[in-house]
């Protein structure tokens, strides 16, 4: 009796041990996909569906701005993540620093579902190099103009309206040197991302004029929405795109949203495969998964961001979107912008 009891115990212990072994073994065996992305790009329920379909585990790390994303990729030379999401301008940086690797487009059949705007990929600056595709567009937003419908009979057609003295002191602009220089360059008919040194004085004068025409420069979408309402602004440069449209409409403000016909700046976030990816095929499977109609649609519904499969309400297919590219000297633009914003006058600024 005692003997059999003892045997039972040993058996039970052994079973527990075996189960633990099995657990740790399976934990090791389950493949993990490490995603570095922005809030809303890999929601828990969508991630779960992917995990179940592929029998893998997904680890999502969220970032809030480009600088942190760069930091995280730089640490470990990209070996800490398999898939990352970044905009086209940033992709140039990642390709340059060799932190991402070419993607096998054959593994992403859902590419054929994308709008003509995104085909061919080589037409989008910054995501292909030497015939290889490095990034797959996922979501985008144009930086359109929000306007007070009562004061505009027709929608503003161009960023040039930001300089229109009719709206002096009623314009909300974004406090960002890079984009504001691009706006100035476009107004001057220059390449928004490559302003020749010789043209800087003109660009500065253009920005001084922009400053004098502006009511205020905002940083956050909520701040912009509040100022637009409280100060009865007429025009707003929507750096955050449709997100800001939603904020104002939710607040019951009668606004219109226009994507300038003459060309609108737009950011385009893409997926890329890190150079240190453990399983490239799995990373590509994730990218393909996000281009499924259900997943892409969920992004638009939940985040108010345009996806690459469906025509967005804001930008019509023909709207000329100018995807962001790295600028000639971001630091210089920022430095000069800080001086303009501080209120320096022409004489000092052009010295």
């Amino acid at each position, binding site marked *: 009796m005692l003997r059999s009891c003892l045997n039972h115990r040993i058996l039970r212990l052994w079973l527990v041990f075996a189960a633990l072994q099995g657990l740790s073994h399976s934990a090791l065996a389950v493949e993990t996909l490490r995603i570095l992305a922005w809030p809303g790009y890999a929601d828990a329920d969508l991630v779960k569906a992917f995990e179940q379909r592929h029998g893998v585990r997904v680890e999502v790390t969220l970032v809030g701005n480009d600088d942190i994303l760069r930091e995280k990729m730089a640490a470990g030379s990209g070996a800490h993540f398999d898939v990352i999401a970044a905009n086209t301008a940033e992709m140039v940086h990642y390709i340059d620093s060799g932190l991402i690797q070419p993607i096998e487009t054959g593994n992403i059949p859902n590419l054929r579902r994308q709008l003509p705007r995104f085909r061919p990929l080589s037409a989008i600056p910054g995501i292909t190099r030497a015939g290889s595709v490095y990034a797959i567009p996922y979501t985008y937003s144009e930086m359109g103009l929000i306007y007070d419908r009562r004061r505009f009979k027709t929608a503003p057609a161009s960023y040039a309206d930001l300089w229109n003295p009719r709206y002096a002191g009623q314009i909300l602009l974004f406090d960002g040197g890079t984009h504001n220089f691009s706006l100035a360059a476009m107004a001057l008919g220059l390449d928004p991302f490559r302003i020749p040194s010789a043209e800087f004085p003109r660009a500065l004068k253009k920005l001084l004029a922009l400053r004098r025409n502006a009511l*205020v420069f905002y940083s*956050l979408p909520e*701040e912009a929405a509040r100022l637009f309402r409280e100060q009865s602004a007429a025009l707003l440069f929507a750096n955050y795109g449709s997100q800001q449209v939603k904020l104002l409409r939710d607040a019951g403000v009668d606004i219109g949203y226009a994507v300038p016909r003459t060309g609108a700046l737009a950011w385009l976030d893409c997926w890329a495969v890190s150079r240190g990816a453990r399983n490239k095929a799995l990373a590509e499977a994730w990218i393909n998964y996000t281009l499924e109609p259900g997943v892409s649609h969920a992004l638009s519904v939940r985040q108010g961001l345009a996806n690459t499969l469906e025509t967005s309400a804001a930008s019509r297919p023909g709207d000329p979107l100018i995807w962001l590219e790295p600028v000639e000297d971001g630091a210089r633009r920022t430095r000069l912008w800080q001086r303009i914003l*501080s*209120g*320096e006058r022409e004489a*000092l600024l052009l010295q």
Partner: protein
Amino acid sequence: MKLGIRTRITLLTAALGMLASGLTGYYAYRASQGLLAEAAEREMLTSARVLGRHLTLNIREAARDATLLSGLPATLAVADLREPSTHATVAYNNLARIFESMLAIQPQYFQIRLIRADRHGLEVVRVDRDGTDLTRVDGAMLQEKGHYPYVFQTLRLKPGDTYLSPIRINQEQGTHTGHGQPTLQVARQVFASDGRLYGLIIINIDLNGLFGLLKADLPATQGLYLTNAQGDFLIHPDPEQTFGFQRGHRILAQDVFPSVADIINEKADYRLISLNSPPVLRGHPALPATAVFLRQPLGNYVSDDSFVLIGLSMPQREITRHTHTLAIASLNIVLVFSAVAFVLALWMSRALTSPLQRILQAVGRVSAGGDPGELPLNRKDELGDLARGVAHMHTQIRDQMAALDERRRTVDHLSRHDTLTGLPNRRMFFDVLKHAVTQAERTGAQLAVMFIDLDHFKAVNDTHGHATGDRVLQIVAARLQHCVRSGDTLARLGGDEFIILIESLSTREPVTAIAQKLIAQFETPFSVGPHEARLGLSIGISVLPEDGVEAETLVARADEAMYAAKLAGRNGYRFFTDPS
């Protein structure tokens, strides 16, 4: 192991005493711990209130200064200038000197400016703090500020109102010391003499300078927090956590300290927050902490933020540090009282058991037949009763024993003596004789047995009665006793027969002398009351060793010699062996 009652009482009472002091100590500690924690929280709340009050007072002071400056004649002189004017420089310089004086006496001001309403908010007179110096900014260095909320919002004020800016990092270029610093601005409109809105006076307040002084008075372990009305951190032990909204991502107090949301939503004025596992932040110890946050209204200004939140946090370790001291003090008290309890228990058990032991020893002595010795008879308690009981019992036992002894002695005497005459009886006589025979054999001495029978005694009994006979026998005994030596033994064998043992003889002379003395004694008649009797006596004598060497033989031979004497005519004596 067998535990004595003393040990058991000691252990039990000591344990009880220690338990009582231990429990008292523990509960006192718990209660005091709560009180200390409450006191610490109250202290933090008070500190936070003081900080808040100080902030409000400083803002009020700045608002008064702005009001003062906006109405000064020197300010009006600038506002009234008609351009172009040759007086302009003088007017500007005058006002700049006033700004400088103000900055000199108000170290918490970064900057004072007069800004025009027109010309895109161009600065007219501006003095900046630059380290320990003051710097006048003028000419081409003056900037256009029309696109800053503090300008266009102040210009839209109702007359008499004061504008209070949100607290922000001042990122305006060329602001000297104020650049990159958390700043709060207070502004007032400036009107020209003709009532035209000329511009505004604005004072930049150094937030860190304001709090730095106060922070110096706080314990180093306390963390100071300040947030705006939306909860964005403006001051935080980790500077990285502040002004996130100016870097594109907001860092909100309600995300770190959830109940802060109640203050922001105006559900509460303050909240005490216990964080068992606070978020790990740089410069912010990830230790369990207690924090207090309270809403501080800033005053009656036109502002986007009508209040701020002031928070103080303290590691719980700091709060419990005092309770550690308390715990040690409590422990010491408990230990001392336990020791006292132990000593008391020892003393008590001793006090209780030593009388018991004395009584026990007394009982032991009594049962060993001795005297009980000292007993705690004077005690008024149960032990006294017990001692008295034992003493009483001892007295009773002793008395009974004495009575018994007396009885035994009487019985013994009776068994060896004749009740009538008090003389030894036959039994005793034979014991003495046997002893004397043995003795004589050893020493070689002679001894004699003298058998005496009264003559005519039967006639006395018959004539005068037994009572008289008995009385006569007593007198006979007395007369016989009178004749023997002190070492000799006279006994009554029964009836009218007596016997005498005479020891230590070397010759028969003393024997003969005694016999003659006896006979002579009987010549006197015996008077008993009215009666008188004459008695004679016949004496037979045997001598050791001639007549025998055994007691019985000696007595028998003396008896025979007595018969011979009686036959020879009574009232005479005869040796068994005639010496001649």
